[in-house]
């Protein structure tokens, strides 16, 4: 059993989707608990990759491919997880605010969030207040992440937070903000729950919010 879980973990690290899906099926067939498959196989593989990331031993593409593999595997066992009431570590909604088309920074954060075990709903770029609120209502996430890369779209992060407050959803979600011109001071000023400097620390901070 341990061997199979290890194999799954290594498959995630290598981003070998086909092998991982097969191994997960084999694990299910062998009556390994789905919670264990998730935590000791899939998530563990991702954690080990995360450790390598921190030591500068892997690049983004490797993490992205692993994250993609993880998503596919989680998708495959989703019905069983739901059936057994096993929940992901947390749920997050992410998007770049209205007027801002910057994509890559947001995608990096999304990647690290997936890697940290979050289920992530990506709203894309140029996202209006209304769309964010709709997504909150629909997905009930633990975390909302707002990206802004321009000095003139930073105020839109405030607009989103204000709209969420007005919609009386503010206390239901932790809001994190980021982007090149954003600062901790600005985050405090607009009432965000957290600001981090880069994608990796964003995910680390998010984990603290749900644990």
């Amino acid at each position, binding site marked *: 059993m341990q061997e199979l879980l290890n194999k799954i973990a290594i498959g995630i690290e290598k981003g070998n989707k086909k092998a991982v899906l097969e191994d997960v099926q084999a694990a299910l067939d062998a009556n390994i608990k789905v919670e264990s498959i998730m935590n000791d196989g899939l998530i563990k593989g991702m954690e080990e990759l995360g450790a390598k990331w921190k030591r*500068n031993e892997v690049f*983004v593409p490797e993490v992205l*491919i692993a994250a993609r593999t993880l998503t596919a595997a989680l998708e495959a066992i989703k019905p069983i997880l739901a059936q057994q009431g096993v929940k992901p570590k947390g749920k997050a909604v992410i998007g770049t605010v209205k007027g801002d*088309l910057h994509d890559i920074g947001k995608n990096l954060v999304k990647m690290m969030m997936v890697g940290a075990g979050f289920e992530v709903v990506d709203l894309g770029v140029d996202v209006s207040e209304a769309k964010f609120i709709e997504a909150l209502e629909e997905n009930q996430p633990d975390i909302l992440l707002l990206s802004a890369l321009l*000095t*003139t779209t930073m105020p839109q992060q405030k607009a989103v937070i204000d709209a969420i407050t007005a919609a009386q959803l503010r206390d239901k979600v932790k809001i994190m903000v980021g982007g090149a011109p954003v600062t901790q001071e600005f985050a405090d000023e607009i009432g965000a729950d957290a600001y981090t400097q880069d994608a990796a620390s964003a995910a680390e901070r998010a984990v603290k919010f749900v644990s």
Partner: protein
Amino acid sequence: MGKEFNKVLYDLDSFVYGKSLYPVKLKNGLEIGGGLILPELNFTLPNMLFNESTFPKVIEQYRSIIDEACKRAVELSVPGFVAEVELLPDATYRPEWGIEITKVVREVMYEYEQKHQLKSGLRLTPVDIREDLNSEHMWHGEFWDKIMRIFEEGAKAGADFLSIESIGGKDVHDEAIMYCNIKQSIFGLGVLGCMDMKRLWGSITEIAEKTGTVSAGDTACGFANTAMVLADRGYIPKVFAAVIRVLAVVRSLVAYEEGAVGPHKDCGYEGVYIKAITGTPISMEGKTSACAHLSPVGNIAAAVADLWSNESVQNLKLLGGMAPTVYMEQLAYDCRLMNTATKKGHSAVLLLRDLLTDSDSYYDPQAYVLRPDVVLKLSAEILKGKDHFERTKLAGLAAIRVLREAYENKEVLISEREVPWLDMLQNEIESIPADVNVFTQEMIEGNTSAKFEPKKYDL
């Protein structure tokens, strides 16, 4: 192609900063590439709202930025400079705003020219809003029209140089960078990018001719600089970013094939290749653009530059003054040093150029591919290709070959974990079919980027 470029125009001895074969001269006498390297000042708003009600404040920001910067330029006896007005999205979506900003900035510049004989030119750069999710087509429709309107009316409002950081092909290239997928990158730059550049720069050149302004050139910023910034953080291999830079040459060259005459845009580091191939002057940015982004090419970027830029800085108050004024001063001193060498004579210029070059080129493959000698060598390789597609592939292969050699000769530092990437990238490029149509079909079918819609390119 319109104009054809088929040979390298400089030898190493004549390939220097401040001087280009085909300088660009404005009516007021400001000359780029005519002997002196000059500052190109860039600036942006501080954190503030940009809307109907704040627009007067926005205008006042721009007015005071350029006024203070010009004042300092006079105090430092700056012999001339270019100001770039890189419009924010808001000012591009509402062309009348962008045009008004252009007018206000240019007026201040004229004032300093009249009162203090400070010659200057304005580069107008709308943001390429064709990236908007609602943009239906690359070459017509609302977003295209707005950009063209800004160029045309901005020219009448006083712009001298027309530029843009165009995004044709970026829809696939963003993903290419994240996955370090060189095939996809070649598709983005060498196929889609070149197709788009042709249409775009044909139109811009037409407007420039009609309005008596200068069709100046583009930058592969959204491609190669995005890669550079990610590489700088250790997210992707530096060798990948270095190769992307060289791939970008063919794409940025298209502007010149369609009639642009320079100066090439500051954040397009591939400009050194453009200069080698076209003889037009170029703008570059390095250490003195650290305010906008850190980089591994702080000195070498100046080696053959004709304008020296700070890329972008918010209008924040530093202790020494407003940040754009501070950066005007820094650029002025950088240029002063280089122009003093020019006054001293050619051998001083060559020495300074080589010091700038040698000081950076060992530490990073991205710096290495900007070495003047490497630029001349790789340019020749690139020009062996018969069309954009083939040239782009050759660019990639030649860059990889040069980096491998340099690594083996200990001329460049490539970290061990990056070395295998050279082979991986080469294999990928070699697997690309010879026929551009076959390749295009393959890339469209295998496309995983949600942002890329072939029909926007009539594909």
